[in-house]
């Protein structure tokens, strides 16, 4: 086994080993021990990832790929898939984020789960998730990716339903899995189309076999495959119309929400599209769909976020919304921007989730922000780091969120696949984001305390605050690896957009308009100022004039009602899709199975029994009747043979 294979083995193996150690010992109550094992595994994995990326950096940009094949998984006919792994520019970012943020969240969990009943199980799941997520991003072919894809779904299911004694939480896990499955079915169909069209499922072979953009004569299968894969992405990445599972997924432990439902798993869809950018650019229609769904989701989820009272739900809708941005980016061909936002979002959203976890931990599992307020005094570190996250997400200039979000907005305007309308939707969503995030900040940390008397919030232990601080720093500076050209030009030393350089060889490109710097600056200004205005409004509403929100809500009337009820999407799904299926199935069972097929069987047996009864009545015991049968038999025979 060469060195790279060994690194792959360690990268993937460490969490797997951690999973087995904790999993076989699942009854253990020793959260320190199991936490250390799991965190250790994650850190080992991170080191391996870093070493791999180091190897990668030493390679020339065009050949930045490290492959390693372990064994042949399936070989049937001309379909052959290996358990093979690939690190390139794209997955390098992913593995660093996954193992890096993952390690931090593992560490955070040690503190967070200290008093749980079954920490070993929790950490086992977390390690298993890490393993599957790495499979997903490292997969050298669509099938290995799919393994990870479903694997993370499974872990998500297990972790959301971790506190399964609560039926609602168990239901949330189930919902997540099944909704994801709908997407997975699309993913599968995408794989089928791609394999049957191009004869391979390996990414490198697939992309090399794609026709050039010029030969667009046969985009049919490509468009279909892209759309099918995008269905998969909407499931995993919680886009319209399959986003409904993500807010419910907040039922899981908060670190899980941070890791799975903010930083890593939910970005898998984006990652997949970026990984297949070469395919998607050949299907402009599919790209348009991706962009529109992304933009719409961004806005839609953001508006829902405006009215939520559960700290985690706000963050969940925010995640859906931010994922929408990523799809918007991918849809307009700004794959690099999508990856960038994916990364920065991983930092600040993980930070905010962990921060909320810290708050919830301090508040004794209270998640309603109406019962918080003024926590900045009791929880200074949490507040400070959360504050950074807040700044990042609302797009405060030069923070990570600003860099990536504004790149997306600019690309959605300037890309040949973009449209000003997409930009506009994005900007409105950004304003909404700014509003609800400020609202969240205000209600949680600022203003007067509404904390119930019996709760005594306190700052969390270091295992929880250290990850917060690290993530806070990353949220502050993480964006600097991708400073936009226009801004870079203004900064001394003219830092380049490192990320773009790094990713460029691995991505397909869509022609971009060389928009003027002035245009870019003015668009940037519009979005920043809109966000600022929204933030100020929120601050005004929830800190300065706490009585105003009610009036505003009343002013919006029906619209407010719709938004605060999440547009009744869950109810509509329940009433229009789930219930009809269940009722229909019951009807099938009652009317087709029992009522028709079985009744047909019974009918056959009834016919036999009826005929038997008839024959019995013919057999009435009268000798002369029997003699008559004989005579009749004779007569009929004679008639038939001689006369008839």
């Amino acid at each position, binding site marked *: 086994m060469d060195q790279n294979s060994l690194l792959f083995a360690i990268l993937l193996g460490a969490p797997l080993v951690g999973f087995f150690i904790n999993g076989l010992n699942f009854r253990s109550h020793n959260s320190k021990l199991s936490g250390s094992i799991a965190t250790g595994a994650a850190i080992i994995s991170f080191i391996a990832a870093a070493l791999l990326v180091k190897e990668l950096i030493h390679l020339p940009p065009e050949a930045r790929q490290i492959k390693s094949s372990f064994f042949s998984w399936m070989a049937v006919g001309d379909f052959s898939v290996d358990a093979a792994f690939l690190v390139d520019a794209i997955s390098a970012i992913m593995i660093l984020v996954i193992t890096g943020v993952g390690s931090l969240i593992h560490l955070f969990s040690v503190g967070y789960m200290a008093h749980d009943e079954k920490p070993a199980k929790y950490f086992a799941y977390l390690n298993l998730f890490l393993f599957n997520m790495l499979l997903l991003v490292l997969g050298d072919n669509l099938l290995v990716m799919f393994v990870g894809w479903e694997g993370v779904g499974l872990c998500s299911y297990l972790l959301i339903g971790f506190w399964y004694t609560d039926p609602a939480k168990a239901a949330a896990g189930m919902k997540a899995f099944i909704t994801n499955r709908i997407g997975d079915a699309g993913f599968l169909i995408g794989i089928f189309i791609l394999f049957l069209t191009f004869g391979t499922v390996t990414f490198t072979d697939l992309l090399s076999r794609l026709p050039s953009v010029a030969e667009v004569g046969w985009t049919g299968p490509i468009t279909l495959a892209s759309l099918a894969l995008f269905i998969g992405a909407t499931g995993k990445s919680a886009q319209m119309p399959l986003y409904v599972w993500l807010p419910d997924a907040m039922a899981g432990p908060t670190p899980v929400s941070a890791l799975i439902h903010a930083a890593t798993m939910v970005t898998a869809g984006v990652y997949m599209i970026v990984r297949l950018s070469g395919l998607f650019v050949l299907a402009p229609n599919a790209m348009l769909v991706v962009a529109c769904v992304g933009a719409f989701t961004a806005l839609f989820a953001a508006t829902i976020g405006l009215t939520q009272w559960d700290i985690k739900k706000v963050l969940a809708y925010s995640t859906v919304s931010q994922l929408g941005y990523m799809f918007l980016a991918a849809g307009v061909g700004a794959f690099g921007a999508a990856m960038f936002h994916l990364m920065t979002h991983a930092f600040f959203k993980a930070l905010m989730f962990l921060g909320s976890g810290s708050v919830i931990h301090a508040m004794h599992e209270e998640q309603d922000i109406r019962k918080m307020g003024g926590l900045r005094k009791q929880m200074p570190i949490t507040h400070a780091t959360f504050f950074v996250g807040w700044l990042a997400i609302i797009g405060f200039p030069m923070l990570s969120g600003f860099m990536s979000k504004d790149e997306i907005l600019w690309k959605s305007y300037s890309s040949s696949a973009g449209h000003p309308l997409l930009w506009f939707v994005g900007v409105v969503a950004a304003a909404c984001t700014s509003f609800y995030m400020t609202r969240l900040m205000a209600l949680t940390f600022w203003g007067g305390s509404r904390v119930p008397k019996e709760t005594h919030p306190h700052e969390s232990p270091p295992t929880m605050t250290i990850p917060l601080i690290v993530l806070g720093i990353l949220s502050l500076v993480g964006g600097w690896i991708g400073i936009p050209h226009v801004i870079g030009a203004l900064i001394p030393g003219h830092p380049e957009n490192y990320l773009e350089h790094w990713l460029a060889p691995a991505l397909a490109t869509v022609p971009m308009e060389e928009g003027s710097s002035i245009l870019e600056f003015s668009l940037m200004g519009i979005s920043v100022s809109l966000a600022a205005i929204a933030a100020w409004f929120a601050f005004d509403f929830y800190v300065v004039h706490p009585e105003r929100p009610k009036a505003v809500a009343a002013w919006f009337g029906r619209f407010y009602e719709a938004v605060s009820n999440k547009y009744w999407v869950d109810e509509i799904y329940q009433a229009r899709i789930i219930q009809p299926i269940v009722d229909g199935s019951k009807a099938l069972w009652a009317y087709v199975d029992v009522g028709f097929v079985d009744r047909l069987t019974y009918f056959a047996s009834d016919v036999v029994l009826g005929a038997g009864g008839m024959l*019995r009545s013919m*057999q*009435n*015991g*009268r*000798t*002369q009747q029997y*003699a*008559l049968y004989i*005579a009749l038999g004779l007569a009929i025979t004679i008639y038939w043979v001689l006369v008839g």
Partner: protein
Amino acid sequence: MPSIESLNQIGLNHYLALSAIIFSFGMIGVLMRKNVIVMLMSIELMLNAVNLSFIAFSNFTANLNGQIMVFFVMTIAAAEAGVGLAIAVMIYKKFKEINIRYFEQLRG
């Protein structure tokens, strides 16, 4: 003798027709009569009708075998009558009843 003349005009078919008629009477008797003894007699009638046709065939085809058969049949008919009557007597002794409609236990 005119009678013989006329007898000569009587052909096989006449005998056969007579035999058929007797046979039918026998059948009808079996089918209609309720008294077991009468039914027995009807069966004898049928057998005798058959004997008649045997004789007729034998005569008109100059085949003596037919007449031998009649002997067989007569013997068998006698045996049959014997057995039948014995059963009838036994039943009568047991149930004091020889109406065929009395015996309808076995059915269904």
